[in-house]
């Protein structure tokens, strides 16, 4: 694995912020990915969970898979969601860990944080909170989490080695990483990897 990053991490971060700020403000804007309730159905989230989630809490959902498909969270667990976006996965997690658990969503986009905080309040999920930050430098103390979840976010980070090091830092010994992300079956040409626009379009 090369230590040379294909793109500038700061520039990519700004590009990602711009894209997901737009999704937060206008979730039905027509993007290269699906969004919202139809996407949650497509990715196999439980019908009852999708049905009972208010529009405001799900319409900016932009995941790429279902991080709960390989196992549900357990009551009382402490969970960190990397790139929590509109908060849908955090709300699902909060339902699974229950009132004695804790869920902390971390996102770098203020517009997404506003959405997710409002949704948690509206649903009375006091075990969910949302913090501003980047996933390469998590605002979480070492060894705090039983589980780290994420959905379609790690692929948007240039320095994945640093992301996984941060996940290791915040997980307890024996803790789990449950995430969904995209992977390609055919190799992407080096020139395309260096094109920031292709990371987010």
């Amino acid at each position: 694995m090369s230590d040379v990053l294909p793109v500038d991490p700061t520039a990519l971060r700004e590009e990602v912020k711009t894209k997901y700020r737009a999704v937060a403000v206008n979730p039905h804007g027509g993007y290269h990915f699906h969004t919202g309730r139809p996407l949650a159905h497509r990715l196999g989230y439980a019908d009852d969970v999708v049905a009972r989630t208010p529009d405001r809490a799900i319409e900016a959902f932009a995941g790429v898979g279902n991080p709960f498909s390989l196992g549900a969270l357990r009551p009382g667990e402490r969970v960190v969601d990397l790139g929590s976006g509109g908060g849908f996965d955090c709300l699902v997690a909060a339902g699974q860990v229950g009132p004695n658990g804790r869920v902390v969503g971390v996102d770098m986009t203020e517009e997404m944080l506003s959405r997710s905080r409002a949704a948690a309040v509206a649903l009375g999920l006091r075990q969910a909170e949302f913090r501003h930050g980047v996933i390469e430098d998590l605002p979480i103390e070492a060894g705090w989490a039983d589980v780290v979840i994420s959905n379609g976010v790690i692929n948007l980070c240039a320095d994945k080695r640093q992301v996984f090091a941060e996940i290791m830092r915040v997980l307890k010994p024996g803790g789990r990483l449950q995430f969904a992300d995209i992977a390609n079956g055919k190799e992407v040409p080096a020139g395309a990897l260096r094109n920031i626009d292709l990371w987010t379009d």
Partner: protein
Amino acid sequence: MLEQSGFVDIEIGPPVDTFGGAGGESKARLFEVYGYAFLAHKSK
């Protein structure tokens, strides 16, 4: 990369056609891009 980062007992779920019918479908097909669920553990 998960193994290189020290994770163990790694499991990968089946592919999901994340971009089917979306604007990014043609590019996704070009590079066979699908969504996957991953489960990995930090050693005890």
